Each structure stands twice: as structure tokens, then as C-alpha cells.
């Protein structure tokens, strides 16, 4: 039980579009244990992003249960969810979503700002997170002074800085070419070796090959859930 980071039971997420009701998730049940490395795949529109949003507490399910690190979070208030996102979730987005005016260091500090960490402690932790993704020498650069791969690594450092229970990445390499994708995936791999639990959404088989479990969604349901021997770049 204490090993279970994510436990969802019969998760349903419906959208009301005028008279029409769209079921993006039609009863998903899933368990993810600590230090697992999960890739979610599936065709476009199969509900991957919807799933990630619910898992990341950005969205709440229409029905079903969601236990995150032992706590039922599917019925919490907006502000309680904001607190959970701050403490337990690290997001990495396809489009990086860095603040353009802030330096790499300031971007990484942001979750700590909302977590109430101040002053020297905040800077030190942000600096260490940047060092973990290999950007110790780029702290004062702004996003437009960084390459795409470097930006995504800043975003990963930002996701890590609060030591979240889970790192969620929705197509983190979707905007990157294959070489920089490889850089970013190396970072994920290393974090996983260091104990981080990771869930990432991808369309690409090479990316999914880094994970040790691949969950495939189809029409809002889990079509397959397979363990695999991961391939790792040297």
C-alpha cells in the first residue's frame, strides 16, 4: 500500500458539448508503484491528455476514485488541489511553458515560491535541481537564450524541485528533434534510476521504449498494459 503512488479505480471523465456528451475516459483503473517508469500511448483522441490532467490534479473526474500517495483527491476543492499539485506533482509540458521573462533559475524557483519556501533555501534548491538536469552553467539564461532541449530540461528541473511523488510528462519530446529528444530522455532515465516515479505520454515507440511499462489507451479505455525490458541509451 505504501508502495502505491497512484491508484485509480473506474475513472470516468465526461465532457458536455452542447447536447452531446463525450466520454474521454470510460472507466480506467490503474495502479502505479513507486519508482515505476510508465509510458502511456494510444491514438489521438484516446484520452491520454485527459488521463494526465486527472492524474496531475489539474482536472477532476466525473466519477471514480483517485488515490494519490494514499490520499483520495478526486473530490477536493480547487485550492486543496493547487496545494497537492505543488507538493506531489511535477509537470513537464510539450511546449515547455517557461516564463519568458524569467531566468532559468527563477523559473525553477516558481514552485518553491508557491510552496512558501523563501530566500536562500529557495535559490539553493533551485540551483541543485538545475544541476541535476545538467544546466548548472545556464542558470541566468532566459528561455529565449536556450535551445529547445535545454528549455525542456529547465522545465524538468522545475518539475523536480519540490521533490514530487510523481513526474508527469505529456509528450515531453513532441516539440524536439531526435537528438535533443535523446538528451531529454537521458535526463528522465537518470531521474528514474535515482528513484523518481515517472509517467509520460508519447506517440513514439523509441520514447516508450525507455519505460518499463507501457499502458495503451483506446477510446478512453485501457487496451493493454505491458511490462517490458527497457532500452537505455549509454
Amino acid at each position, binding site marked *: 500500500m505504501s508502495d502505491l503512488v497512484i491508484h485509480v479505480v473506474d475513472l470516468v471523465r465526461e465532457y458536455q458539448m452542447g447536447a452531446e456528451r463525450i466520454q474521454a475516459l470510460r472507466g480506467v483503473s490503474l495502479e502505479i508503484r513507486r519508482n515505476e517508469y510508465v509510458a502511456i500511448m494510444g491514438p489521438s483522441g484516446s484520452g491520454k491528455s485527459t488521463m494526465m490532467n486527472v492524474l496531475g490534479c489539474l482536472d477532476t473526474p466525473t466519477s471514480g476514485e483517485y488515490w494519490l500517495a494514499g490520499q483520495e483527491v478526486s473530490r477536493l476543492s480547487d*485550492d486543496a488541489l*493547487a496545494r497537492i499539485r505543488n507538493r506531489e506533482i511535477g509537470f513537464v509540458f510539450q511546449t515547455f511553458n517557461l516564463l519568458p521573462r524569467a531566468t532559468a533559475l527563477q523559473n525553477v524557483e516558481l514552485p518553491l515560491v508557491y510552496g512558501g519556501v523563501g530566500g536562500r533555501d529557495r535559490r539553493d534548491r533551485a540551483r541543485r535541481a538545475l544541476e541535476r538536469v545538467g544546466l548548472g552553467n545556464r542558470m541566468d539564461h532566459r528561455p529565449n537564450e536556450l535551445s529547445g532541449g535545454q528549455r525542456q530540461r529547465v522545465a524538468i528541473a522545475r518539475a523536480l524541485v519540490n521533490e514530487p511523488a510523481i513526474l508527469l510528462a505529456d509528450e515531453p519530446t513532441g516539440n524536439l528533434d531526435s537528438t535533443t529528444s535523446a538528451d531529454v530522455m537521458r535526463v528522465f532515465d537518470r531521474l528514474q534510476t535515482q528513484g523518481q516515479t515517472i509517467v509520460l505520454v508519447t506517440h513514439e515507440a523509441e520514447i516508450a521504449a525507455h519505460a518499463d511499462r507501457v499502458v495503451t489507451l483506446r477510446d478512453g479505455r485501457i487496451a493493454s498494459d505491458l511490462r517490458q525490458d527497457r532500452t537505455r541509451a549509454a
Partner: protein
Amino acid sequence: MLRNIDEGVLIALESLRVNKLRSTLTILGVVIGVATVMTMASIVEGIRTQVFNAVNAAVPNVFYVMRWFGATPFDPSNPPYEVRIRPVLTENDAAAIARAPLVRHAALWCRFSSRIEFEDSRTQITEVWGSDERFIELQGGTLLAGRLFAPSEVRTGAPVTILASDVARSIFGRLDPVGRYVRMGNRALQVIGIWHPPDNAFRQPGATTGAFVPYRMAKGSFRFDETRELFVVVLGDLSVSVGDVRDQATVALRRFRGLRPGLPNTFDTITQDQMLQMVDRLTGAFFLVMIALSGVSLLVGGIGVMAIMMVSVTSRTREIGTRKALGATRQESLWQFLVEAATLTLVGGSIGILVGLGMGEVMKAGLAIDARPPLWSAAAAVVVSIAIGLGFGLYPANRAARMDPVEALRHE
């Protein structure tokens, strides 16, 4: 919550820098509104200070007794009933007041207008006081040359005068005026002294005190309004408050005029405080109008700020979503934009304060009044401009706070 202020301030300053024209137009209303209030406050405070100085140039325990003291003007040749029923002040009234124990000195004085002429040169119509030998003691200033009135000259209303130094200079040039004769109306008066008025006295152009003469001289030879230009000047004992002296003087004059208890006074007493109060009442009305006018520009400014903040919120939708994903609560998102809005208006307010200060300097030079905006108006301007930012920023900030994080992150 306060920990995010620096960031909001920086973002606001950044957007001011990047969108100079748009931002300038946005905060223009706030600038104008604040500058108007500051300027008006300067004028009002300047007038007030000058009245205060004029009144205060005299000793603090001086006050006046008049036939009538009121803010509403009337035709002196046909005063209203409530004024007419009051007797005109006399020297005997002054003597009765002078007998009150706490009164050190009381004398009937007057003011009239005349040109002052010497040979071919003459002044504009200027104010002349009919007073006694204690004029300088009670009104301030210094005697530069010559002497004050002798008691006998006061008693007999001798044809002598003491000139203000600027009047003396303008009609005598380099000549020494003392001992020479000037003309006022059809009277020839010997100059016996030169008086330098107090530096800070109320000196509107054309309303300066040009000279003074013995009261009885003035009374015998010049015409003046016996309601508003004739008064008893009273010097009270310094050891007690002016209010106590005024009460005693009131009792003394009532008794002298035979007023039974219950009957109203047939005269008014005016302390310096009351004069200031009257000035405040007059300027206060003026001030209210200006506040209303500047309120309109502040409103326009506020709406501008609301508009620019709506733009800011919309164009930063993804950023809002990102911040929420990283843990920003509703309140923190709200606060972020409130700080930004308040910074914009505070910048506007600060510029307004500077403009107001500048206007104050201009008026100081142009109107010859000491128009320096009071500290409170700057403080109020700061508070008001922040409040406008918070007030008008609330709607856009609230929109940001209520955004759904998923929607916001999906925004293009």
C-alpha cells in the same frame, strides 16, 4: 501572500517599458486625476498658508472684534437687516474692551484704499491702515527708518504716515522719504517712518498694505466700509488662551452695550482660528469641485487600467495555467494581477505627483503665492492610486483566478 509582490511589480514595470504608448495612455487618466488634486491642494494650501501667515504675522494672542463677520458678500451701502441692527463700532467700544483684565491692549482700527503720491510719481490704489502706535507690534514687520506714531499723534489724528518700504522705494526712488510729504486723496501727510512688512504676509498683487496712518486721521479724512473695514484689534494676555481673552472681551462689550443675558451679541469676534476656518470653508467648496472633476479622470484611468489588465490576463492565459499547475492557488493568481494593476496606477500616481509639484512651482512663480503641495496630498495620491489599481484590477484579476487550469494551458 506578500512574497509575490516583487514579481508583480517587475512584470508591471516590464510591460510599461515594452508597451510604452499603450501603457502611457492607460495611466494618463490616473496621472491627470492625481495631478489635478495635487495642484488644487497646492493652491488651497498656499492660500491657507498665506492667510495663516498674514494672521499669524501678528502675535498669536491677537484677535479682532467686528460689527459683522460672515462669508456672504453684501452691498456695503445697503447691508442686510441683521447687519443693520448692529451698531457701528466706536472708540468707546474699544475702550470698554481694553478695561477687561486679561486684555493688554484694544484699539479701533480701520482700512481704506488710496493712491499714495509724491511729486509726479504715484502708486496704484493701495490699502492703508488707520491704526495706532502698536501697529508693528500687532501686525508684524520691522521699522526700517524713522519712528512710530507718538501717542499724541494718535490722539490728535496728526497728518503723519509710515510707508511700506516698497511703496517708499517706488515713489521716492533714491530720496530719503522720512520728513517729506506725500499726498493721499486731498491730504498731505508727513512720512515719519519706513516699515518693512513681514516676509510671509498675505501679499496678493494689488492688495498689499501700502502705508498706515493714525486712526483718527483716517476717520476724519477717508471713507471706508464701517462693517468690514472697521474693527477693534485686541491683544490678550499671553499667559492665557486667546479663547479666554475673547470671552472676557465679549462680556465687557456686552455689558458696555447693555445687552441683557439671553440677547444675542451685536458684534462678532474673530480669532485667527476662525479666520482660517472661514478660509477653509471657502476653499473647501472649491476643493470639492476639483475632487469631483479629478474623480472623473481617475475613473477614466481606472477603466483604462481595467482594459489593459484584461489584455494582460488574456495574453498570459498559458502562463496563468502554468502557474496553477505549479501550485498557485486562486488567491495567489488574484494577487499577482492585483499587484500588477496597483503598480501601474502607482506609477501613474507618482507621475501625477511630480506633475502636481511642477504645477505648484509654476503657480508659485506666476501667482506669487507659496503653492507647495502639502505632504498629506502626496500621501493621499499614493493611497488613492493604489486603491484604483486594486479596485479596477479586481475584475481582470478575478478572471485570472477563476480560470480552469486545463483550459488555460490549452490556450493558444
